């Protein structure tokens, strides 16, 4: 099996010959997604929820249909789906909207050392403002969520456990249902950063165990400018609005306001309407392939890449080297060669990888590196992309006299 070659024609950017191995940062967008947005904007656009005229009704229906589509994708209730600007905003909404209400001195927030800054910095800010303390679950030697350490750190004072559903730097996939059920035993709320998990593995929120789940459209073939916060209704009810404005109110007087029902309560102002239509089309596209097949495809390429990378002189792989509980993200360094030099050299070979700290600086310190080069796969990648990657790396090794 060599991926889904039929799909590649849907991604015009690939015609340039680029070996795009940076979907972990953001994915490319297939033509059906771009066309759905364009068609909607040309024929049915108006603001939503506000007008009594047909165009506005059509736009509102399209927007709410997108919400239902997301709900179906997650096996959730549509009222539990909140459209946001992206995973970062979703996580800030929980940290501030839930955290400022329910955290105080003596309370503990538990996160991990491998979080993306989006699931770390907001909790630092909220800890500072509420007096709660922040603690971090370490990772094991092969870059996995350390369950033993977690059990030790978990106690009745822990009010929220926030962790990544899949590490954007290591590819690790923590066992969310287990972690969540342990957290629920001490009555902590569980926040899962699904920015990588949802696009690559899909989730069923009925079995995931999370109370909140955040993700972005742009990493799952959809447009920029929109993301999702899913929350179990009882968890959402504990949350204060993060932003005030139009559409989120029931009534407003000069000095006071009451909130609209959920989900509108958390969607202040004009939402990302055209983008919701695009996300809808992206989910249709993903489901037409099938999330299981997508995960298997990522895994297949990961297996090949892990094997071939091990043969390249000087290359070191950070994170799990086997396929257990991991997705299609591989972080590497090359002895004597900085990750940015690797990225530049690979770029000259038509291979796009990301070099840097991947918005996970504490994890980089943990790994003892300043930066890594990160390879990440998605539906349009093939074994040829790995060929190009490996030959680019060999070239880098030669240039820098490695091995």
């Amino acid at each position, binding site marked *: 099996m060599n991926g889904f070659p039929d799909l590649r024609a849907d991604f015009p950017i690939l015609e340039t010959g680029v070996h795009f191995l940076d979907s972990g940062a953001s994915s490319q967008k297939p033509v059906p997604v771009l066309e759905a947005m364009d068609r909607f904007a040309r024929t049915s656009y108006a603001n939503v929820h506000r007008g009594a005229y047909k165009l506005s009704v059509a736009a509102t229906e399209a927007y709410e249909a997108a919400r239902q589509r997301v709900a179906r994708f997650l096996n959730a209730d549509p009222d539990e789906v909140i459209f946001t600007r992206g995973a970062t905003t979703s996580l800030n909404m929980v940290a501030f909207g839930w955290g400022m209400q329910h955290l105080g001195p003596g309370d503990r927030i538990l996160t991990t050392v491998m979080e993306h800054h989006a699931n770390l910095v907001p909790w630092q800010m909220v800890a500072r403002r509420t007096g709660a303390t922040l603690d971090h679950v370490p990772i094991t030697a092969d870059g996995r969520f350390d369950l033993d350490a977690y059990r030790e750190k978990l106690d009745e004072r822990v009010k929220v456990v926030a962790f990544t559903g899949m590490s954007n730097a290591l590819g690790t996939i923590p066992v969310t249902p287990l972690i969540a059920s342990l957290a629920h035993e001490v009555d902590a709320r569980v926040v899962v950063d699904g920015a990588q998990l949802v696009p690559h593995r899909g989730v069923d929120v009925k079995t995931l165990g999370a109370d909140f789940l955040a993700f972005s459209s742009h990493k799952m073939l959809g447009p920029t400018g929109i993301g999702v916060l899913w929350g179990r209704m009882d968890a959402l009810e504990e949350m204060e609005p993060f932003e005030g404005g139009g559409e989120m109110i029931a009534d407003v007087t000069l000095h006071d306001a009451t909130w609209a029902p959920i989900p509108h309560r958390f969607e202040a102002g004009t939402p990302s309407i055209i983008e919701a239509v695009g996300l809808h089309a992206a989910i249709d596209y993903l489901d037409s392939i099938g999330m299981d097949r997508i995960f298997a495809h990522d895994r297949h390429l990961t297996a090949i890449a892990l094997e071939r990378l091990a043969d390249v002189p000087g290359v070191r792989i950070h994170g799990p080297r086997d396929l257990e509980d991991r997705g299609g993200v591989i972080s590497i360094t090359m002895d004597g*060669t900085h*990750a*940015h030099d690797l990225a*530049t050299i690979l770029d000259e070979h038509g291979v796009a990888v990301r070099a*840097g*700290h991947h918005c996970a600086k504490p994890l980089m310190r943990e790994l003892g590196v*300043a930066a890594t080069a990160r390879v990440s796969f998605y539906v349009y990648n093939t074994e040829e992309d790995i060929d190009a990657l490996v030959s680019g790396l060999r070239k880098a090794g030669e240039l820098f006299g490695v091995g």
Partner: protein
Amino acid sequence: MALEDLYREVILDHYRNPRNRGRLPDPDATAEGMNPLCGDEIRIDLSFEDGKVAAVAVEGQGCSISQASASMMSEAIKGKTREEITELIARFRGMMSLEGGVDPGLDPDRPGAALGDMEALQGVRQYPVRIKCASLGWTVLQDALNF
């Protein structure tokens, strides 16, 4: 090919064997800086005698371009006055901002002249994202002068 133009031997040499590495015990001027986008870091200590750089020490970590550039810079400023260094910074910036990478030939007033080894960094111009790497040490040097 362009890559050989970027990674010239002299650059790789400075990267592998950075000159003037370390700290000065009691520097007259010091500064550090980093590129928040890529995390590259440089720290510079300077000491002056008779208005001229008597000693320089550089610490840092990052890509070959940022570290080699700082190493070459540390060589170039030894024995120079503040005015001469300011002039050098201007020449370096001029070289980096030249459009299209056209080699200005042997004109002694051309921006790259008198930069010595550092002229090897001209290849960076073809890689706009890497210009920030090459410039990092020089930005920190400017800060040290304003110390």
